[in-house]
């Protein structure tokens, strides 16, 4: 079982975002970067799939700047076998990103390509199904759990009102959402081992972004709220305000 997981370096979800001069990007100073959370779920799923199969290979692939080495190392420390860094600048144009990833994926013959359902920076929710379409492989999105048997992946797909059970023949592309388990922590041994694991680093294929960022703004402040009162005595007043002032009941 040959699995490639696409992961992205994104700001920690706790990070405060401020806009850089020029108004079209964020100010990276003081921002802590992590493996985008859904990408981490994807790595965890890949490792479990390999463990269940008893053999195989998990490669992590990213498009990013040189500091994305760290992102790959974090996944290697969790247990992935090798990393590939395509050096380049990801943009909000997910199709441009998908093309770069696909150019690399086509050099390999992965049975499974896993991605996160969305990246925690641009939140586009698109690269996975684009990769599937460009590769000409079936893609199942929003998968919270899956098992592979006899070349078929049986996936739990989270949709409004419930879970679909979806079967797909490998090779296939899956986008991973949160499921029943958390990503594993890297052990000290894992971190040491990761230092010796191979990372191939090369220039990303040049693909132009066709989704220009015109401007970035901080979201409008929510108008100052109000404490209606303390304890159960405030409940009737709250109900009245919701009906008469906010007009939402």
């Amino acid at each position, binding site marked *: 079982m040959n699995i490639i997981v696409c992961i992205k370096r994104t700001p920690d979800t706790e990070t405060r*975002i401020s806009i850089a001069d020029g108004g079209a990007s964020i100010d990276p100073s003081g921002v802590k970067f992590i493996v985008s959370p859904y990408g981490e779920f994807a790595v965890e799923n890949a490792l479990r799939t390999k463990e269940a199969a008893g053999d195989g290979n998990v490669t992590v692939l990213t498009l990013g700047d040189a500091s994305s080495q760290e992102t790959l190392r974090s996944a290697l420390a969790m247990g992935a076998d090798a990393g590939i860094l395509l050096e380049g600048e990801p943009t909000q144009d997910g*199709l441009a990103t998908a093309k770069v990833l696909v150019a690399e994926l086509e050099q390999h013959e992965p049975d499974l390509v896993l991605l996160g359902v969305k990246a925690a920076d641009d939140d*586009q*929710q698109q690269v996975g199904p684009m990769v599937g379409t460009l590769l000409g492989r079936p893609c199942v999105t929003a998968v919270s759990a899956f098992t592979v048997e006899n070349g078929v992946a049986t996936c739990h797909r989270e949709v409004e009102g419930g879970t679909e059970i979806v079967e797909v023949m490998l090779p296939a592309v899956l986008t991973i959402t949160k499921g029943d388990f958390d990503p594993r922590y890297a052990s000290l041994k894992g971190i040491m081992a990761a230092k010796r694991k191979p990372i191939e680093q090369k220039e990303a294929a040049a693909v132009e972004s066709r989704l220009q960022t015109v401007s970035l703004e901080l*979201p409008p402040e929510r108008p100052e709220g109000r404490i209606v009162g303390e304890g159960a005595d405030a409940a009737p007043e709250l109900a009245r305000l919701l009906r008469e002032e906010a007009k939402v*009941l």
Partner: protein
Amino acid sequence: MSNVLVISEQRDGAVRGVSHELLTAARSVASGLGGSVHALTVGDSTPTGADALGAFGAETVKVVADDGFSAYSGERFAAAIAEIAGGGDYGAVFFAATSQGRDLAPRVAALLDVPLAGDVTGVDVQDGGVVFTRPIYSGKAIATVKPTATPALATLRPNVFAASESAAAGSVESVSVEVSDVATATVTSFEAAGGDMDVAEASVVVAGGRGLKDPDNWNLLTDLRDAIGNDVAALGASRAVVDAGWRPHGEQVGQTGKTVAPKLYFAVGISGAVQHLAGMRSAGTIVAINKDPDAPIFQVADYGIVGDLFEVVPVLTDEIRELKSGG
């Protein structure tokens, strides 16, 4: 001059209400582009409600009704939509940012070789081109983006564009498409999550967190939801209570759960961690009930009660029940 195509999703043989929101947004873009609005719906029969899309501004309603589309398949549906969208004079194509729309739109974008703006909360036409606004960094910033290829594709976040009527011809026209054989995934079964309304679709969300102390206490929240009406209100949850196994993941709101934009959001016994806010900060009115006056949830709440939820919620439920019955 170019038109705007709205992909109108079906569920159980009917067009979904979110189509009306999309048509409303599409009207403003179509008038900026000097064209008109078309709707397209794909399934195995003409869905209930297709003939009513004209009331929201659809000039024509294109219906693909073919047994080959009886069950949803991302690969096949995308091929059909790309064929129609690519074959007409379309300046923009809008999908709903639902499970289906988010699955479909990126595939159509790849087939048409155009970029896609995901989870859009604002649309506009500037200098003859479509621009979108969309939250990024989990809502901590808002980006304005401009596609430089047409059609401009976007998924629009449900509940953000208020639907309004504006009559157009709405003539229903049947279209046929040829989809060549593609490798697809197959849905073999569906496990309904209790049949309750989904948190991402509800106009009121009653969300609970670790402050409820025990999963057995959720009857407090189901009672509140029922007093509001279980046809409009749904339960939501923080990650802490989902991870503890108290609530199903389908209810989780936040960074690693669902993004919701209801008219009214109750956060009960939820501290308001930044990852929770990521999923609900665009709600219309936010109510917080928490015993800790310094809980961060109060910073985004429009109305707050500082107090013990076990005392506050039952009284609030009774009050709302009474308001509802008294009119």
